[in-house]
């Protein structure tokens, strides 16, 4: 059961009030499929330039990463020119 933290605009779209929502998923692909029920264009947003942090590890171009039962997933705006 991964705990997903959504930032400002995503949280509004997902209609969640609290900081985090619980989503059962063994890896990122599964997580995104489940999240699509709440945010239909979540995959487009990730491709367009959202970074994802899994347990503190910021991943700029995530796809297959596995999730631990107590993993925390954060969606971050992509870092523009962020790795100079």
């Amino acid at each position, binding site marked *: 059961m991964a705990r997903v933290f959504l930032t*400002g605009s995503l949280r509004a779209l997902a209609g969640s009030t609290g900081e985090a929502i619980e989503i059962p998923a063994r890896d990122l692909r599964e997580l995104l499929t489940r999240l699509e029920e709440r945010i239909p264009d979540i995959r487009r947003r990730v491709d367009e330039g959202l970074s994802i942090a899994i347990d*503190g*590890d*910021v991943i700029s171009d995530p796809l297959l990463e596995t999730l631990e039962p107590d993993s925390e997933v954060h*969606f971050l705006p992509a870092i*523009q*020119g*962020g*790795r*100079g």
Partner: protein
Amino acid sequence: MATAENGSSEPKFRWIGTRPVRPDGVDKVRGRANYGADHALPGMLWGKVLRSPYAHARIVSIDTSGALAMEGVHAVVTAEDLPEIAPEESKIGEGPTNYRDLSRNVMARDKVLYHGHAVAAVAASSPAVADRALAHIEVEYEVLPHVLDGDDAQSPDAPLLHDDLYTKGVEPAPERPSNVASRVEMGRGDPERGLAAADFVVERSFRTKAVHQGYIEPHAVVATCGEDGRATVWASSQGHFMIRAYCAKLLGMEQSQIKVVPAEIGGGFGGKTTVYLEPLAIVLSSKSGRPVKMVMSREEVFRATGPASATRIELRMGCTRDGRITGAHARLEYEAGAFPGSPVGAAVMTLFAPYDIDARAEGYDIVVNKPKVAAYRAPGAPMAAFAVESVVDELAAKCGIDPIEFRLNNASKEGVQSTFGPKFKRIGNVETLEAARAHPHWKAPLAPNQGRGVASGFWFNGGMQSSATVQVADDGTVCVVSGNPDIGGSRASLAMMAAEEFGIDIERVDPQIADTSSVGYNDLTGGSRVTFATGMAVVEACRDAVRQLRERAAAIWGVEIDGVEWADGEARPTKGGGELEPLTLRDIALKAARTGGPITGRASLTARGVGMAFGVHICDVEVDPETGKVDVVRYTAVQDAGRAIHPSYVEGQMQGGVAQGVGWALNEEYLYDDDGRMENPGFLDYRVPVASDLPMIDTVIVEVPNPGHPYGVRGVGEVPIVPPIPAVANAVASATGIRMTELPLSPPRVLAAIDESRG
């Protein structure tokens, strides 16, 4: 001098932590190392770029016939020679870059968007002929009103740079185009509630000017492209794989048609993580049928390559009487230059990182008629740290608490949720603050007109993709092949890690930086990632080779592989191996042909477990009250490197970051006239620090190992430029009693502030 301090038990290394001479050093002190402009080929032509004299204008027509007719001119290129690129985000290089914008920055299409924007290019028999040819290209412009300042660009009636630019990150999506390219917001908790509960609240607005990375080597390239459509490019860049990918994308070529050979790079600091000349050189060579060399003048580097953003930052922060920060809110406006892409996202992410507080930051990326910004060492972070660390200093003073104690009271540490989302893993923020507090500099006496400032700095560092191959020669020596340009001594660090893995002498390791056709893909040198990520690939590749060596030893001894262990450069039988003699690397390598063939280790990976890092700097300044001149009289930089592989180069990164930060704080700025022309495009009036401006820069390396790396490495290149601006500003405040919030702190500005405070 440097003293390494760490609490953890210290594993015994033979090479890691020592200071061997870098393997590529002799060529560099003999003047034999080849940088971008040092390559020459038979029949080579010289390429030059015609640049826009206007800050904003429509290109009505370009007539190149006059230039083409000139004797000695072999080719002319305009936007028509480059394919129209659809807007598509690139995932490599410096983070999301829009290929359409990149193409239009390499050569203007329909509109010029800044003074110095490339409009056409020629290839001719000599630089002088090329210069004359530029004068024979007739361009008809329809001059448009321009906007140079981030504030003005946001007003509704400001001239629009892109009529198809709608602000991203705003819900609901806006209907009217704007100069605000995007909005980004991050935070934790409810800062407004915290601010309401604070005993002290400080609210200030900060301004910084655009500054340049200031690399001493101007951009340079030599390219050749044959009738078979195959190109070879010798480029001085921070990533030749990025150069290949960007050129292929902008020219509509396959990457297999382009080989990029890395020249030595004469400094980059993030400014050479993109393309300016390379695509043009390829097209000029293809049209002329001859190799083409292009070298920017220093004036072109200033007018037309990426500076760091000018910024305006508003910050409100509050704390309780006993020094606990209760909340903070920041609004960051970063100028992106002609195309979207300022590092405001990274600034929003990093500015509160040193502190365990509820805080929220919103950032705006704003286009203006100035050159497109490029990354500059921890992009976006130094300007934001200027704001946060200045206000933190003021709050500490209001509470009457020592500024380092105040920071320790609020320091983020392992397990704390960051304001950009994830919880911090193992970090050295507290240890770095404690090492600074313990340093003799912190309590040393000050002379009249002197002041002392302290500041923290953070950078998250990068992982990204790296590949390495390790070839074992039959004399038992090892060639370590990787694909990251070596800006500051990384060949030495990679060789040291390989020597440690093989257990052999470093002289027997030959680190090579290979071209794009000779090693697996490597993301660029940036994000302080090379020793971390490429280092990880080298270690994996060495371990792959060692496994093969153990297999060969097992075959020679006729035992199972787990009957063989590797230590001190030789294969040894595990316990119970009886009378088997150890086999050295050379012994096994000599028999490689008969035991299966060449031994080659290989690794390609996306590096995980990036080690975020912190720095704390202490700065003493002396301020001349009658002229406003600020002199840095003492400087100490403390930084967590996780593990210092080659301490001299870690110290070098710290000292270099300090010098750039001090220059940014005191004298560096882009000056523009009302027509959008830069007034100081040269090293005389764009004042980078010279040797006599600085004292010795003492360094303290703290080592809180990063669990994510085989040797505990954290990136070190970018953190050191984050603390200097606030450290200098806090020192000036301590010396003069005046809180200055606008850079640079040049003598005229400081004297004006002093006189104003005297009323």
